[in-house]
């Protein structure tokens, strides 16, 4: 039988159908099952903060130790329209999320994320 880990690639469309709280819950549930998620569009900065917050509430000694999350730095919309509205529009980008004991970031820069995924938990 083939052994390994499950990696789910989540489209922007799939996540956009969910409310922020649903997204966070969905991600946490999947990661706690040991899945590695690749989000096409990523999360907004406030959703990332909510995800960190919820992760902290679920950490248990000898159990779930948290998540590894890596996203590219968000891009700010600097278009004339954006400036006219005087409100920053943040464009989130691809994000990889997995259990902290399975996913380890090796290197990351503005446009590349290099990660190691363990098949053992």
């Amino acid at each position: 039988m083939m052994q390994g880990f499950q990696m789910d690639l989540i489209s922007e469309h799939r996540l956009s159908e969910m409310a922020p709280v649903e997204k966070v819950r969905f991600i946490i549930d999947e990661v706690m099952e040991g899945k590695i998620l690749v989000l096409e569009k990523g999360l907004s900065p406030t959703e990332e903060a909510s995800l960190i917050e919820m992760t902290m509430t679920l950490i248990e000694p000898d159990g779930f130790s948290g998540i590894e999350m890596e996203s590219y730095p968000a891009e700010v919309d600097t278009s004339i329209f954006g400036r006219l509205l005087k409100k920053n529009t943040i464009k989130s980008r691809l994000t990889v999320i997995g259990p902290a004991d399975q996913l380890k970031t090796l290197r990351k820069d503005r446009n590349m994320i290099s990660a190691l995924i363990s098949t053992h938990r």
Partner: protein
Amino acid sequence: MGVIKKIRRNFADLFKKVFKKQNARIGIYGPPNAGKTTLANRILRDWTGDAMGSVSHVAHETRRARRREGVTIKTNGGSITLDIIDTPGLATKIDFHEFMEQGMDENESKRRAKEATEGVIEAVKWLDNLDGVILVMDATEDPFTQVNVTVIGNMEARSLPLLIAANKVDLPDASASTIRDAFPQHPMVSISALEGKNIDTLYEEIAKRFG
């Protein structure tokens, strides 16, 4: 104290409360062990003669946010009075085994890990109540950590001012230019909070950004 005097004093206090301009609340953020409390202590010692909290080489030494109100920083351009919040280090994972590797026993490590998770939650919650952030980065580390990305993203989304303090430039491996190249859209000052290096430049920039 006479009744009239008492009434006059109460009225003066009320007047102050109603019309006093609230100080800008500035949070000191960053990953564990970046030097946030060392910087908070440096600022407070320089301007109040006091300190914010204890520091340690073991991560998550600060596990509760600490707030100091009315810290007046004087620069060549004038002065600014701030409320400074030293926050616990932000993280996406906390494993008590890492504290055991630092020599703590199992119970103490588990307690510290539990308190650290609560500290992270507190730090995240403070993001909604700030007027600006000093993001402390360890200049010897890769700047593209998720904590840095998330804090910067949250400040940009809220259109709030952010100042990056590239800390630990007293160490031989430090590279402040890597941080500048990573986040060129935000002002950055390279400092050693421990040794006080470049700290006056930081104060000038604080007055400029948060004034």
